[in-house]
């Protein structure tokens, strides 16, 4: 490689309170190359992009060279002036402005103009679109364009301010196959102009079609940069997954008869043809990449996302679940991700939080609350779930993440659900508390509850579940008994779908 790299990044660290998002990461981009950035959910790709875009600052000690010279990217406009453009997944365009304005805006601001010359705006836009070989109505309001066309506007905007390096974050996630092909043609055009592309995607097959080099991140660490010929899909996945600390495998209880059966559940734009069963006393792990449709499916079971077609059977009886009230009436509980936002009243005491779910049970004469009964029940649940410290009057916000999650669990257990759906149960909780939550979930299962657990953390899925379901792009693409499940097998399905199936 005698060519001078456009960009060199070395020793990029980024710490957020309590989390090391990037740990000595490096990246090198050559002019005109298509470079893939890969890693699992949470591997640090987004943070790295944000640093390149000037949205986040790396920790001190970072080295960023552009054309071999040290570069300072303090804010987005610096990145633009250095020739770096980011095309975010949401494109970051202005729905209320015209195509021409969206394309030219960045350039005009970069030039520090005060007045708008509409002739110039149109000229800039026309030139940028011509460079891409694309025709669009310049006066059309952006929000009236289909998604694929909006993406072209975003690319044209990058060209308008002479970007030499374009970062594309999941550029194909909302495109049809035909649109992906035309995007790849456009990328070819950009390459010919010497513009480098950083392509971030979960679709490995696409990456192998378009990218020449791959940089792999795992858990915020730099794993390596590889030429396309050095890799294949299996090898890439094993680099992304690696070997990680495993949680203590929780002992399994025997599972009982079928509690819940779902048949070909489908909702347009959400999921398709979802069928599975959940047994009494079973923990069913549901995994896949973020955005695979996992949350959408469980919300359908809880009446938050009514499906277009398909059937749900509870204890063999067909049910229609149209609202959370109906779901709760049927004995289904749902703990969403983000317990602080949706599951807890942070400024109230632990006791008040738990008794919120118990209001019916502790209602005494004339609808007044029975304080004695309340205290008794709250203490019972705090003990059963081992909430620490055992202080009912403490504010929920003062508890640690793990204990907060226990209070949320207590709330739901108080309603005595037959089925508990829990989304990312240990997100943002420290390792010790994670194991405790795992143990609790196993205990609940052994008492006969059926648990459907969504998790992106494979070690967690493997430690707790009896069976594992894998989703990819709105479909179920794998089911493994726990004995045969491995991280590699699961990731293979999550990234590439069912073996033998043609995927886009």
């Amino acid at each position, binding site marked *: 490689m005698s060519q001078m790299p456009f960009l060199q990044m070395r020793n990029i660290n980024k710490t957020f309170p309590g989390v090391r998002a990037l740990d000595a990461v490096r990246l090198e981009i050559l002019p005109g190359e298509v470079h893939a950035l890969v890693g699992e959910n949470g591997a640090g790709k987004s943070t790295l992009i944000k640093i390149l875009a000037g949205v986040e600052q790396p920790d001190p000690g970072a080295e960023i060279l552009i054309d071999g010279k040290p570069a300072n990217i303090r*804010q987005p406009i610096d990145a633009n002036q250095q020739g770096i453009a980011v095309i975010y997944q949401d494109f*970051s365009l202005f729905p*209320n402005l015209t195509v021409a304005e969206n394309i030219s805006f*960045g350039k005009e601001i970069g030039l520090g103009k005060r*007045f708008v010359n509409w002739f110039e705006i149109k000229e800039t836009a026309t030139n940028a679109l011509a460079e891409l070989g694309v025709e669009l109505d310049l006066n059309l309001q952006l929000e009236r364009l289909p998604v694929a066309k909006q993406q072209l506007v975003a690319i044209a905007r990058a060209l308008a301010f002479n970007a030499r390096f374009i970062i594309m974050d999941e550029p194909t996630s*909302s495109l049809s196959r035909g649109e992906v092909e035309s995007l790849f043609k456009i990328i070819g055009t950009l390459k010919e102009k010497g513009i480098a592309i950083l392509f971030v995607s979960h679709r490995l097959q696409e990456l192998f079609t378009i990218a020449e080099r791959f940089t792999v991140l795992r858990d915020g660490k730099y794993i390596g940069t590889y030429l396309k010929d050095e890799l294949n899909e299996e090898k890439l996945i094993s680099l992304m997954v690696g070997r990680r600390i495993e949680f203590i495998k929780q002992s399994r209880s025997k599972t009982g008869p079928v509690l819940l059966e779902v048949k070909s559940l489908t909702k347009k*734009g*959400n*999921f398709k043809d979802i069928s599975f069963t959940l047994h009494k006393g079973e923990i069913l792990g549901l995994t896949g990449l973020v955005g695979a449709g996992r949350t959408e499916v469980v919300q359908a079971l809880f009446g938050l996302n009514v499906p277009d077609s398909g059937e749900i059977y509870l204890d063999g009886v067909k049910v229609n679940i149209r609202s959370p009230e109906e779901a709760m009436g049927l004995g289904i509980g749902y703990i969403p991700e983000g317990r602080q936002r949706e599951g807890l009243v942070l400024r109230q005491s632990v006791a008040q939080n738990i008794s919120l779910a118990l209001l019916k049970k502790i209602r005494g004469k004339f609808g007044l609350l029975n304080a004695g009964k309340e205290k008794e029940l709250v203490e019972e649940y705090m003990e059963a779930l081992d909430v620490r410290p055992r202080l009912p009057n403490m504010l929920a916000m003062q508890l640690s993440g793990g204990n907060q999650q226990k209070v949320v669990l207590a709330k739901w257990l108080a309603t005595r659900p037959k089925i508990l759906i829990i989304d990312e149960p240990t997100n943002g909780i420290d390792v010790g508390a994670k194991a405790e939550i795992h143990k609790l979930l196993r205990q609940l299962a052994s008492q006969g509850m059926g648990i459907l657990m969504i998790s992106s953390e494979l070690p967690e899925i493997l430690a707790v579940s009896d069976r594992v379901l894998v989703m990819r792009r709105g*479909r179920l693409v794998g089911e493994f008994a726990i004995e045969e499940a491995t991280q590699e097998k699961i990731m293979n399905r999550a990234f590439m779908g069912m073996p033998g199936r043609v995927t886009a």
Partner: protein
Amino acid sequence: MKQRTKSKELWIFIILVVLSVLISARSNVFLRPDNLIDLLKNNAVLGIMALGMTLVIITGGIDLSVGAAVAVLTVLIGKFMVTFGGNLLLTFLVAVAGGVIIGIINGTLIARANIPAIVVTLGSMSIINGLMLYYTNGSWINDLPAWFIDFGKITLFKFHDAGGNVVGIPIQIIIFLIMALLTWALLKYTLMGRAVYAVGGNPVSAKRVGINIERTLIFVYAYMGFLAGVAAVTHTSIMRQVDPNAFLGFELQVVAAVVVGGASLAGGNGSIIGTVLGVLFMAVLNNGLILTHIPTFWQKIIVGLIIILAVSFDVIQRKRMEKSLPRVDVEY
């Protein structure tokens, strides 16, 4: 969204025409030039303020302190003229400077301290009203200088109406038209104007593309203050005296005119043409009700209904759009 806004503008225009036809069928005074001119003159202040509020609302904000601001500015220039005499230019400068200062304070709190606009401006409204009451004790200011009274009587472009009377366009309408033109050009031909739309349309993208959001917001509230100053002079030139309580509750009429004119309180859209139509609608409605001897409280009820209808139409459309968006890229 421009297409949608344009169709909104077309709608309000059609409603305005229908309303005018209905009123002129019941009152032969309505379409007389002197009535129409009076109608415009009496709503010039509302119009000037609504122009500024349009910018505020496009950024997704609101300014509830404008009634109090314009009131205190009328008191300020009233005292100024009575005490120092002064001249027209100085009076304008005092009013505008006072307004800009109020606006900068509002804007800084909103943009830098990140306090919601409704909270900041509700607070500043109360503070300004309190200070003004303390200062004036609610008493009026009379004895304005003769040169100012004369300024308020200026009419231009005189012509003869059908009855042979000489009619001219009062200076207040001219001021409104100049401000409307200025604000329109600001929105269309300056980068600041486009930044106003960008910040309201997608603040995250605006930041990523390098727009200084703080500066944009402070500018918008300062510009609102500038127009409050212009409105204070205009109002005083019509009334020829200062009543500190003349603007109680006025902010709601200003917001109403802008919303009726098609701006979305969620931010991102709105236009000067729409706002001018919204102001005309409020003016014609009020005038028509008076001419047809319908109690004027109907104006408030009708305006309220139209605001709720306009806003719910917006919200429903947005929700429908969000619902139809796919959440997962399902493989078929």
